[in-house]
Each structure stands twice: as C-alpha cells, then as structure tokens.
C-alpha cells in the first residue's frame, strides 16, 4: 500500500485524481504495473509447474495405453469336454495389497479338444457376476434378470450383447487367456 499518498492532501492535479485512486508519479505507476504483470506471470508459471504434473497424475488413464497380458488358467485337462467350469486367475497387474480382489473368476467352456470359449464373469449389461446353470444350459445374472445361452449369446433380459470373451491360446498343455481389464461395452472386441 502506498501510505504517503493516503495521507497526503489531495490537490488538483493534471491527472484524474480521486480519493480512491490518488495521483501517482507516472514512472512509479509503470513500475508498479510492470511488477504486477511480472508477479502474475511468475505465478502462472508456478501454477503450471504444479498443475500439469498434478493433472498428469490424476488423469494418467487418458495417457496410458490399455494393456493386457497372458495368464494361465490351468492345464487343459482340468476342463472336461462339453462342460462349462468356473476358472480363476490372478490379475496380471495385481498389487501386493490387492487382497482378494486380485483373483478374478471366469467361465471356461471346453467344447471339444482344443476348442474353448472363455467368458468374463461380468454381465454385459452392468457387470454383475453371471452364474452358470448346467441343467438349463444358461448363464443367469442376479441383478436385472439377464440370461445367456451356453455359447455366450444373449438369451433374455437387458444385456445389449452376449457375454464378453477372452482371447485364449493353448501353450504347453496349459489354457491361457489374455486378461487384465474389467470388460465393459467400451471394448467392443471383448
């Protein structure tokens, strides 16, 4: 604050003076304006120095490529032909503090030989865990009544498509799937 000008009596001056904007030496004025601009500029840089890393940290999902990895579901022999069985695997990207959320189930249908279908547990409607019913050969969803046939095709209810499937391969007698993400409608190929 400019203390002197507050106290100095206001005189008629060539510039437009008023009690709120007292007269000022034009030189001083430019300097003050420059300082203000400099201060704002420096703070803009400082703000960016903090803000950009912060945004990059929080919104890292917008920069990171989506990745999947192969995981082993077990020996092919574990899955009898013509049957659908519950399989499970460890999320390939799990953290040591994930607890039980690191273990993900999936439905494995062995049609015959090396012909498989591996379905996500998540209903294509809103992700609830579907259950397999061997006798009626249907997957039923406990949330909103979605149902799917043995081959994963939509049978009834609100799901907009069939069950999500995992890509699979047989390696050394082991059934492997490409996993590591929650399947949603954002992945049309799943």
């Amino acid at each position, binding site marked *: 604050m400019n203390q002197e000008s507050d106290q100095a009596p206001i005189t008629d001056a060539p510039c437009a003076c008023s009690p709120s904007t007292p007269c000022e030496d034009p030189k001083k004025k430019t300097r003050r304006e420059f300082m203000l601009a400099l201060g704002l500029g420096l703070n803009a840089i400082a703000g960016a120095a903090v803000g950009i890393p912060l945004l990059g940290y929080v*919104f890292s*999902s*917008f920069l*990171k490529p*989506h*990745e999947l990895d192969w995981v082993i579901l077990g020996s092919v022999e574990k899955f009898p032909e013509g049957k659908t069985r*519950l399989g*499970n695997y460890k*999320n390939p*990207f*799990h*953290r040591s*503090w*994930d*607890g*039980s*959320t*690191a*273990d*993900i*189930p999936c439905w494995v249908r062995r049609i015959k030989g090396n012909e498989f279908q591996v379905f996500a*547990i*998540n209903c294509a*409607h*809103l*992700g*609830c*865990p579907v*259950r397999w*019913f061997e*006798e*009626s*050969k*249907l997957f*039923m969803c*406990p*949330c*909103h*009544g979605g*149902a799917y*046939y*043995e081959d994963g095709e939509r*049978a*009834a*209810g*609100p*799901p*907009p498509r069939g069950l999500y499937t995992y890509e699979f391969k047989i390696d050394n007698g082991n059934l492997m799937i490409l996993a*590591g*993400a*929650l399947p*949603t*409608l*954002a*992945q049309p190929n799943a």
Partner: protein
Amino acid sequence: MKVPIQKLTDLGLGVFNWVDDRLHVKKIWESTAGHHVPQSAGSWFYVFGSATLLCFMLQLVTGIMLALVYVPSADEAYATLEYLTYHQQLGWFLRAMHYWGSDFMVGIMLLHMTQVYLFGAYKYPREITWLSGLALLVCTLGLAFTGQVMRFDEDAYWGLGIGASIMGRVPFIGQQLVDFMLGGQIIASETLSRFFALHVFVLPGAVIALVSLHLRMVLTKGINEYPVPGMLVRRETYDKEYAAILKKEGVPFFPKAIDKDIITSAFVIGGIVACAFFFGPKGPGGPADPLQINANPRPDFWFLWIFSIAALMPAEIETFALLVGPAVVGLILVALPFLNGTGEKSWRRRPVAVIVTLLVWISLGILTYLGTTSPWSPVMNAWSAEVTPDAQILHRTPLQLQGAITLQYKQCRNCHAIEGLGGERGPSLSDVGMRLTKPQLVRQVVQGGGNMPAYGQNLSPSEVEALVAYMITLRAEGVPPARDVTLSRNTKN
C-alpha cells in the same frame, strides 16, 4: 468463603471484551445468527435445511471416529470393518450412526429441496442459493455412493462394477473414463483408495465450501418469506418488497425464529440414534472377493430406484437414457431459476409444480419398492429349494409326472412360480394350461420369445412332450385346457 461475584463478572466481561476487540465476535454473531428473517419464515416447513446441515455435522464426527480404525486398503478394509462391527467397543454403534445418518441426510435433503421447489424459494433473487443447493445434492449423493464403497463388501465390489459399466457406455472416451474411475483397468486396491480420498477429503471439503456459500446467500439475499398466493415476484420490485416485509415483521433468526429448528434437530438426532440402536449398521455383507460368484449385489436404499430403472429400461434406449437422462435432468434443474424465476411462488397456485412433485415422489417410491423386491431377478435356487404343491402333483399320468420333473430339473422355476413359489421373472405357471394351447406351449418352450430363452437345444423331443403334457394340467379345477378358437370353430362346422 465469600465469592467475589462482582469481581468474577468483571473479569469475565473483561476477557470477553478483549477477545471481541480482536475478533469482532459480537458483530459477526449479530450479522449471522442475529440476521433478520420474516416472521413467517419461522415455520415448520422451514426446518429441513438446518436439519440436513445437522446430519452432515454428525456425519463428520462419526466419520472421523470410524477413520480411527478403518484401513482403506483392498487387502484389509473388510477385516477392519469386521473388527469395527464385532470387536471394537461401540464400533457397531458408531457404524450404525454413520450409516443411518447418511440415510437421514439424503432423505431430509430431498424434503428440503421439495419444500424449496413448492414454495418458489428458488426464484429471483435466490438463484445462486438454488444452484449451490444443487451442487450440495450432487456432493451428498456422491458421499452416499462412495460411502457404500467404503464398506468394501460384495455389494461395494459389484456396485463399482456397475458404475464402471455405465462409464464404459460413454462414446469415444469410455475406456479412459472406466480406468479413471477405477484407478486402473480393474476393480482393485487403487479403486478403494480413490473412493476413500473422495469420501473423506474431496467431497466433505466441497460440502463445507458449498454450505458456506449457501448460507452466505441466505444472509445476503434473505430467507424466502412464506409465500402468499397471488403475491407475484417481479425483478423490479421484489427487493423493495422484501425489505418492507423485513421492516414490518422481521425478527432476529436467533432467538426469535430458531425454536422449530432446534426442536427438529433433537428429533432428527433422536431418530438417527434410535435407528442405529434398534436396527444396527448395514452389513458388511460377504467380502469383496470376486471368486464368491454367488453374490446378489444390491445398492443402498437411496440408489435402489436407479437399480430398478436399469432392470426395466428397454435395452435399445438404455445407453442413451443412462448417459443423456441425468444430463437433461441436471440441465432442467440448473435452468429452473432462470426460466421460471419470477411470478407466483405459492404452490396453491402452481398446479403443474404440485403435479411434477407428486409424480417424481410417486415414481421414486414405486421404483424403490420394486428395487427391494426385484421381481425381474431369477430366484437362483428355486429349482432345488421350492416344493411343488400337492395339487400340482396328484392324479397325474406318468408322462405328466415326468414333465413335472423336467420342469423342476431344467430350472424353469427360477423364473416361473407355481402357486407363488419360485421366480417372478416370467409369468406364473399356476394356470398356464388355461392360457396357452399345446402347440403354443411347444413353440414357447422350444423357440423362446418375449423375454424367454429358447430351450430347443437343451431339451430332447421326449422331454418337450412330457413338459408340455404336464403344463397343460396346470389350471384351476374344472376348467378345460386352452383351445385354439379357430380350430374349435372348424370342428363345429
């Protein structure tokens, strides 16, 4: 011993004056608690705002208490929750108060919003009061949702899956949004940490800031006078009219208009404590273990209506409705004080407002009720757990009995009840023999249709034969089986 009362009072006064000289307590008190409100605002209808705030303060206190024990890690959250509920002294009661406090807070806030709408309190010049209230509504619902994630049980786990599945429907950036929400590609530890940060830092902080703004507006623009039918709001004259009301019948909020708020406060706290004591905390349900696939995920009370909408919405418009619906509702609410900012305030002369309010509450009520019963969900164990009543078994031929077994074994009853036992997903079979003819039954079973899967792949011809033979016998006593009208006419001719 003689107490020097005079001296003590002087000392106390001295200390107060010293503090007041520095902090201007008196001035602040007079301009806030002592600000003038129209006498008519001291009404029972005007107590919901302060009651919501009271709930929030209780949530802060009980929330901090819970945070003393809770560990926000996917590995341990559930264990600490069980510890809180079963081992920590009075932990169950604190959890229960926090749970019921949140239910009360959302409920009372909705009442407050309804009252504000019906009393035209959102109109000129209280637009910002309304907008900050909307932001508070969003934050409060956000707190309720993130709060149920804190429980980190199976409902929390699959609830996150539902949230992510809705995000996944957003075009173009769906995948990024899913990963952003989950803090990774899958529901795991970072998801819980993320929701914890929202629940205990971001959202409560936002609520405190917004409440300050909300109350600031109450001070600058005043509390809505009790609307009088026929007294219209005009932008040009309202401020003067309000000043006149304050001059004529203005009273300091404290102590002249606060009585009903205080009484309500006591009842609200009493209600929360009573519910906490008698009903206890919710859950935790089964652990957040995805391998426990027999989960039956259900959201907390105030989100049941959304759960119902998800079940009842036709699949073709669902994505559109899920994404565009909330945006449209939000836009209408934001625009309300600008499109409808003047004119009549009293609900007695605003029939449309009354009808809208009733419709919204009735729909919410029905959807919530449906959400608690969820008739659209198959009853997963009906096929193995429900009995077949005597009347549906006695006096049947071996073929028909074989059909009864097929019906049970093929899990038809998970979706179809007999005499009220079984699922309600599909129509009851108690009288199916009166409704469908034999060819219709065969077609329905083999090809499916409507919302029924086709069983043709899964039933041998002899099983279909037996099943249909049995279903024809399912009808009231003395009533003949359904006949094809066209066929019967032919036989007559």
